[in-house]
């Protein structure tokens, strides 16, 4: 096993402002597999949207644990994972809870399952580069009570619960309802009406 896990306490009390949503994605229009929404903005959206998940508080417990996946030998994946960790660290609270972010270099679904069982994550974030592995990750996570979030829009139709897209220069939230039910994610109607829904 070559994966590595790093732990870091989030810094509480930092100002959660949008100002920091500076260049974090490739400055190209990008194909469907690119991360288009700036990572800081994604982090803000994650922190906001989980409030609308009826099961989130029970899932997270006293502290929100976030696992951020990256792929070995994939520069964009590594960069996005590092950026997301930094961006989430700057968010004061996620669903009114303190939070920890961990980086994990993905190898296979089984290792990911074992890690999830051991650590009890509430959120798993996937950066770019996972398209060939999405099916395996979706199946592995189906039995878990957690929210999978993809930085790439294409992941959501393939079974990642929540994702981000950029349309007309504005961020969009995408949700896969069928997979959300399997993972006990239950968004309120107030949030669902703002999302592009896949089933």
């Amino acid at each position, binding site marked *: 096993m070559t994966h590595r896990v790093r732990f870091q306490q989030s810094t509480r009390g930092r100002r959660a402002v949008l100002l920091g949503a*500076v*260049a*974090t994605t490739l*400055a190209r229009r990008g*194909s469907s597999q690119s991360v288009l929404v*700036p990572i800081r*903005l994604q982090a803000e959206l994650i922190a906001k949207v989980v409030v609308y998940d009826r099961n989130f508080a029970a899932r997270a417990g006293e502290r929100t644990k976030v696992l951020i996946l990256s792929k070995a030998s994939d520069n964009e994946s590594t960069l996005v994972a590092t950026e997301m960790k930094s961006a989430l660290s700057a968010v004061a609270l996620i669903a009114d809870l303190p939070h920890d972010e961990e980086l994990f270099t993905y190898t296979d679904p089984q290792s990911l399952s074992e890690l999830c069982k051991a650590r009890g994550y509430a959120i798993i974030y996937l950066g770019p580069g996972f398209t060939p592995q999405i099916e395996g990750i979706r199946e592995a996570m189906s039995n878990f009570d957690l929210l999978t979030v993809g930085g790439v829009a294409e992941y959501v139709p393939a079974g990642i619960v929540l994702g981000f897209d950029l349309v*007309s220069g504005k961020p969009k939230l995408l949700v896969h309802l069928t997979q959300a039910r399997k993972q006990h994610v239950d968004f*309120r109607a107030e949030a669902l009406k703002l999302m592009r829904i896949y089933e």
Partner: protein
Amino acid sequence: MRRSYRLSMLGAIAMAVASATRPAVGQDRSGSDLAALLNENVVTTASKSAETSTAAPGLSTSMTAEQLRRFGIRSLDEAIDFLSLGVVTANPLRDIDVGARGVMVTGDHGDHLLLLVNGHAVNEPLFGGAQFGRGAAIPMEMVDHIEVVIGPGSVLYGSSAMFVVINVITKRAQEFAGFHVLDEIEIGKSNRVAAGAGLQLGRNTDLTLQLDYYRQDGPVFSIGPQTFGVDPVSGVGTVTRRGGKPDGIWGGEAGSSYYAEVPAGHVRLSSGNFEVNLHASTYKRAAPYSAATSPYEGDFDAPDNYELDRSAWGDVRYTTLLSPVVQLTTRLYGDTFDSQHFFTESAAQSCVYGDRTPCLYHSLGMSRWAGVEVQSTFNWFANSTLVTLVGADGRYLGVRAKSDVQNAETLAYRASSSNIIDATEVVVGAYVQQTWTPAEWLVLNGGARIDASNRYDAVVSPRVASNVSLWPMGTFKLIYAEAFRAPSWNEAASQTSTLVRADDLQSERVRSVEGALEQKFGTHRLVFGVFRSWWRDLIELHKLTNAEYAEFAAAGRITSLRDFNQSQYRNISSIDGYGYDVTLEGLFAPGRLRYGLNGTAAFTREPDPVFGRSHAPEVTPQIFGNARISYDFSGGYPLVALAAQYMDRRPAARAFDGAFAVPPTAPAQLRLRLTVSGPIPILSGLSYRASADYAVADRAAYVIGRTVAGAPADLAPVDQFRASVGLQYDLLFRRETSR
């Protein structure tokens, strides 16, 4: 007094509406906090990287595809007028003039602002310009959004980015999925048909394309009549129409000379790290009067007096991350542009070649250029707190131009070609930009670009900006920037019977300092900005004095000694200005009700030795803005949208050229547009859009025809009422459930 009252009112209205919007506090699970985040604009133009507009080092407007459809926008100039902040256009019935913040250079071919399509600079080097009306040939259905960044932008983009940088970004295949056909008719005036497609060609490859054909005929305008009087060459009345009587009367019903034709196509292919853009268009147009900036009129209502532009360009971009820290983008591009102008004159005084057959004046200009831009981003800590952007752009270009006079009947040449330009140029630019986020509440951005050519002195364009956010949902921006415009080849090298070739023409410069306060209240956003700008070395036609004429004549630099009205392009003009911008926009009822308000008040002055004192620049209003509101009834019911644009009273073009005792001004203009759109239930994928426009004032800020001492100015007409209806059919849709 009236001005200060209007200034106060503009600000007061914006503040009052802002205070009426209740701030969203805390996480109330109403969705408003989420909606506010989803309403953020992500822009890429101001710093060549993706960032929220709040964080961008500039004041920008982002006009979405939804807005373009909602408000019946059919061209760039309409988008600017009805949706943008700080920028305004003027329509002389031919090439659109564009200005910003109280500055507009009439007849400048749009060369004081930079137009980008997917990051590709469209401005050509012969005139330095780009089209902003229908001639821009932008396939509007394919547009994802349009970013408008106000203020000097040469720091990253080089020449022409003086007023504003406009970046048109087209859709990905996912957002343009399927096949689309449409027909939009402007009743009795124009028709546009278009067909497009967005295709996913495998996991990593998508293709979007659209073909457009636009044809406009009319409306019929009543021009003049003006008395041109006796032709000094023929000794009888001036002939003003082809085959017309020598009655010395110019004007009447212009039923044949106001038309345009624009076939165009755009293709965007994205595959992995590659992106390819191809664009081709032609733009043929005619107007019922000759030129907005000169008193020389050709034959009246002559359909053969027209201009024809042809352009094609291609752009290949490759972006890769060499490591988590280093990103490299390489862009290869090539463009070709040519422009022809056909102009028939039957007046004997305008065609002195020993017979009485009319003259056909034909000018041709063309330019070709190709280049490569290499850009690298260093995200030093892989968390965007310290990012360095360095880039270099080199291009090689060639320009050619000539003018001929032909017998309009036989097409035989009447003289050797004149105004011949045949030259090449190498232009290189290098830029660096450093972004530093030392704290969550502070973003600093500084950079500079140097541009050099074998034709003009090297120019450095710096920019420093800071974004400070010391309170919730509020940001203050402070920006200092400089920009330049290199003299176009037309200005630098043209030489005609009335134009002496310019001497050592240098770049125009602008410096600007501005501050902007942005405050969000849930899904509402208020921006208030102030600016101060200094424009120097502006290029203008200088009419030679008698002493200068004698000097140039002695040096053999005047082509035709028959004409004593000789001019020369020189760096002689300057403009100072200050003012403020206001934006208020937002949405209610989860996006069903949307509104927006943009306003700009400027006080700009240019010294004018000919007129004898400083005055406001011609054509551009000092107070202008737009407002919009729309409601989506959904459920198969129509989406109703109302947009308005206001321009204050403004001096007409040629108002200060000495021919008028009282400079003519155009009346304040209010344009209204009501648009209704929605699906047609009988067939899935079929939709309609209908709109009606009304302009309150019937005259524009352009003097037409000749100026006669003591006579009032004849101002160009405005097409006051327009109605259009369009049908669109979209075949194939995305997979998501629509809610």
